[in-house]
């Protein structure tokens, strides 16, 4: 058991070691595939450690004082290992491992130095996310939180020569940063009020009703803002679809295990604190449900396979947050885990398709099931899981979320989420029918990908099915009223049926459906992404740029003017003072004499 104390530390240290090695030893990094092997070996060992910890159901908290201050440490660092962290460790290391293996084939055509850079970032990304998961306090969590943001910036902008990728990376960075601003203000306010960043202390106080801070509502709202940015909640969700500009395996990583899950994880981790402020909790629930519905409508009109998946991630994150807001954080976290499996599967499957077809547009695909039956099969498994069809894993977690929201008497969020379930099945099968079963529009050169890519796909598909079967065998304890399961299955099947009618059978013309009155408005709005991107763009141009021009003017003419004068005088002062260093020893002795005089006069003037 003693060994297990060090195991979490090892799980954390391995990707970091790999990062250090690749970052410092340039020849290793430039070797490309060798760098990949180093990264994969480290994360594989990490995965092994995480599985061992998870299997033992290990719990441990270790903190070390970090910044000393007057009367006790100001902040601590450490490791917090509990069931929540254990499950997350397995998800993060598993998805990172599979993504890194998959990338070896997916990015096989990249030049070796670029590939080495890719694996350097990957290792740092895994380390940052693991550090976040193991954080025993808000401060450490924030440090890793920012590192995660930095890594996703680096990986989204991996093809930095492409303007779109560079823009998307900057957008992701800034939009999430907006939320992080709230997060850091929130945790510093919390620290000022309670004197600690540590979860254990804070939760103990919360339990003892000793956390009667007047501004607690504001503080928790600010902390929640961090999650809004990271987990792409309305209205800060706009960065996630753009983040598709990175390589597809990176999307899989960001969407399934790292980055966006950080927000949900944080809200789950801090559940005892959020529970103290019902208003904020209700807000989280409403925003979550609204985000779910909004993103689902946008997914229905997208033609880019990766963007459809991106909106579906936003939508599913809304589910998780809604559950957290309803006080059923464990249901939301459960959904996070199952979603992590099948979303990684879907993205990696989409990557295989894109790799084969050379396009992201689903209407340029078609009939792919015949060309690549294995990829088609696993993609279908992922789609069924996401649509919430039993007995796959997604069904159970989605039902748990719906049950939790219903139990919290949040009727309208429940209706929104139910509608989202219907739309989810519809848009996912829209993709499946169009890309895999429709008439073959691709030039017929599509083929199955290499084993390094197929292996992770099969593994994830198997896990999705096995997890579902295991949950089904366990009876799938009832999460809500008896009508909930039939309702959610019914909604999913209705969505599938509608997609079948519109895109497979051709019984309904999608264009005529979209033109019918209430839908036509919605269709137009969704296609314009509800004007949010345009709004931000306008705000940015009109407001931020105008402000920055003003600041620029002040900076150029006022601040710089003052500074230039000051620095000129400083330099001149330095030059003048240098002259007393004449090199003549007599002057040096005078210096000593002058110094004694100075001390005596000064003492006479000021000493009490």
């Amino acid at each position, binding site marked *: 058991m003693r060994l297990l104390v060090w195991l979490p530390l090892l799980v954390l240290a391995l990707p970091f070691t790999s990062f250090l090695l690749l970052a410092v030893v340039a020849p290793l990094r430039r070797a490309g595939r060798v760098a990949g092997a180093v990264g994969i070996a480290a994360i594989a060992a990490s995965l092994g450690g995480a599985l061992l910890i998870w299997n033992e159901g290990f719990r441990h908290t270790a903190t070390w004082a970090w910044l000393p201050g007057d009367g006790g440490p100001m902040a601590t660092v450490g490791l917090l290992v509990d069931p929540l962290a254990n499950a997350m460790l397995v998800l993060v290391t598993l998805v990172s491992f599979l993504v890194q293996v998959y990338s070896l084939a997916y990015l096989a055509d990249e030049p070796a130095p670029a590939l080495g850079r890719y694996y350097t970032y990957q290792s740092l990304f895994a380390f940052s996310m693991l550090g976040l998961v193991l954080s025993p306090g808000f401060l450490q969590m924030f440090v890793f939180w920012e590192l995660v943001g930095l890594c996703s910036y680096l990986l989204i902008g991996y093809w930095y020569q492409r303007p779109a990728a560079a823009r998307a990376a900057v957008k992701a960075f800034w939009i999430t940063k907006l939320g992080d601003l709230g997060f850091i203000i929130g945790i510093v306010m919390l620290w000022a009020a309670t004197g600690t960043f540590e979860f254990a202390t804070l939760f103990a106080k919360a339990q003892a009703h000793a956390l009667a801070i007047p501004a607690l509502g504001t503080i928790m709202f600010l902390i929640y803002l961090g999650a809004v940015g990271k987990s792409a909640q309305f209205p800060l969700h706009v960065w996630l679809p753009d983040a598709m500009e990175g390589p597809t395996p990176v999307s899989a990583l960001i969407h399934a295990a790292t980055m966006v899950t950080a927000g949900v994880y944080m809200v789950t981790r801090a559940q005892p604190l959020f529970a103290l402020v019902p208003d904020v909790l209700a807000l989280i629930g409403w925003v979550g449900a609204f985000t779910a519905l909004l993103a689902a409508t946008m997914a229905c009109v997208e033609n880019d396979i990766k963007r459809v998946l991106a909106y579906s991630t936003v939508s599913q994150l809304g589910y998780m947050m809604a559950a957290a807001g309803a006080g059923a954080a464990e249901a939301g976290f459960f959904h996070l885990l199952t979603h992590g499996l099948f979303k990684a599967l879907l993205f990696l499957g989409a990557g295989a398709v894109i790799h084969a077809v050379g396009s992201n547009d689903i209407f340029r695909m078609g009939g792919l099931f015949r060309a690549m039956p294995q990829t088609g099969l696993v993609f279908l498994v992922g789609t069924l899981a996401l649509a919430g069809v039993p007995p796959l894993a997604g069904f159970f977690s989605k039902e748990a979320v719906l049950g939790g929201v219903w139990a919290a008497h949040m009727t309208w969020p429940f209706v929104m989420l139910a509608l989202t379930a219907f739309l989810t099945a519809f848009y996912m099968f829209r993709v499946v029918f169009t890309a895999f079963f429709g008439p073959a529009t691709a030039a017929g050169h599509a083929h199955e990908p290499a084993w390094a890519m197929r292996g992770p796909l099969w593994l994830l598909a198997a896990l999705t099915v096995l997890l579902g079967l295991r949950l089904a065998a366990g009876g799938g304890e009832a999460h809500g009223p008896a009508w909930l399961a039939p309702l959610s299955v019914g909604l999913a099947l209705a969505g599938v049926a509608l997609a079948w009618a519109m895109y497979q059978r051709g019984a309904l013309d999608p264009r005529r459906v979209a033109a019918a009155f209430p839908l036509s408005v919605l269709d137009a709005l969704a296609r314009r992404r509800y004007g949010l991107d345009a709004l931000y763009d306008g705000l940015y141009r009109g407001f931020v740029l105008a402000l920055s021009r003003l600041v620029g003017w002040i900076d150029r003419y006022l601040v710089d003017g003052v500074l230039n004068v000051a620095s000129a005088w400083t330099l001149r002062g330095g030059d003048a003072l240098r002259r007393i260093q004449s090199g003549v020893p007599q002057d*040096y*002795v005078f210096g*000593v*004499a002058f110094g*004694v005089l*100075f*001390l005596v006069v000064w*003492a006479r003037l*000021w*000493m009490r």
Partner: protein
Amino acid sequence: MLPAPLAAGVLELALGAVLLLVFVLNLFARGEDRRWLAGTALGGVLVVGALSLVVTPAPAGPGGMFVQDGLAIFAKRLFLGATVIGLLAGLGARPASGRRAGEYHLLLLTSLLGMLVLASARDLILLFVAFEVMSIPLYVLAGFLKRDATAVEASLKFFLVGSVSSAVLAYGLSFVYGAARSTDLAKVAQAFSTAEPLLLLGLLAALAGFAFKIAAFPFHMWVPDTYEAASTPFVAWLSVTPKAAGFVVLFRVYFEGMGERADAWMPIAAGLATVTIVAGNLMALPQQNTKRLLAYSGVAHIGYMLVGFAAASAAGTAMILFYLVAYVFSNMGAFLVVEAVARAEGSEATAALRGLAQRSPLLALAMLLFLLSLGGIPFVAGFWAKLYVFWAAAAAGLYWLVLVGAVLTVVALFYYLLVAKRMYIEAPERPGRIQLSAPLALALVLCALGVVALGVYPKPVVMAALRVATPLF
């Protein structure tokens, strides 16, 4: 087991034995390459250093003159650690390993012996003697390159100013004795509460002598000339250890046993700190020689440490001790990079560092770390050092001093980053890696590790410093 009075001085006795060993071995040394002799001296210091890790505070020696308390042990560990780095860096190169290796090490170790005694001295006579034992070998070492006219000149200037300062110090101490009627520092502290004007005058004059040793403005004039002319590994050591010794003496004479009355030194120290910070930083600005630049920036750092001194509190004292530890790593490291580049390029100008990042990325990275630490950037050692002395001064109500220090930090960053710019942005004058000898590389690695470790996890050293500083008040 040694008898009690000897047990307290076990480190000094051990170092004395090393001295004798080096002396005897030197008699039998032949040939140009005397690396083995340098290695022996280094090994001896390592042994004494290891010994210092196990010594515990002991009761005061005869008449309370010699005390082995927490402060003394902390300071001795610092001296020995810095000496290990300094000797390591000189290993295998002239002058430390050449024909005159024995002479070099005898002088250096004698000075070190003076420092060790000084850290424990609680009596005016012993203090003065130890002070001179520390100082006189330094004059000789500064002019060790005797065929180099500038070195001889620098050494002579150093000696001249040093003698004047020693005279002022001795004169001041005589007043102190006259007023307190005792050479025991505890009695001096008691007498201080009566505010005898002659005692005050004596202590002020003594302060001038100590200020020379730590190189506060305007007693710093010897610093740039000496640093520029003497051999760099020696300068690296000279720039930190005697200064640390000077601060320990300041604590002993001006704080220990003074209690509340220690506040009286606040305005003097604050004034000295202000002029030292301002002058040091401003004079560093126009420098083109890296060693002179580091010399003046070192003067500025003494000013920052005096900010902690001005706080006249246990926290301020502890933070100076922490600052000194951080300073050992960052300043010695920076000098050693200069040495490494100078061995390859034959130049100590900042221009020699051009394009270092392209030629030897790791060496450039190390230099950047040292510069950032000296500049006080977060998560390297120097940041906490500055933050903590400022913190201590703010706690003592010296907000204006903190403001002055913070503003001048910007000036300091300017000239440090100018060096960084030469390394990272400017193109190299010629290609090729800089070859490092193994001992020098090891010394650099030690310094870099220290800077990073203290930057990431400063707590153990801060806590240790607080533990030894608290009993003084």
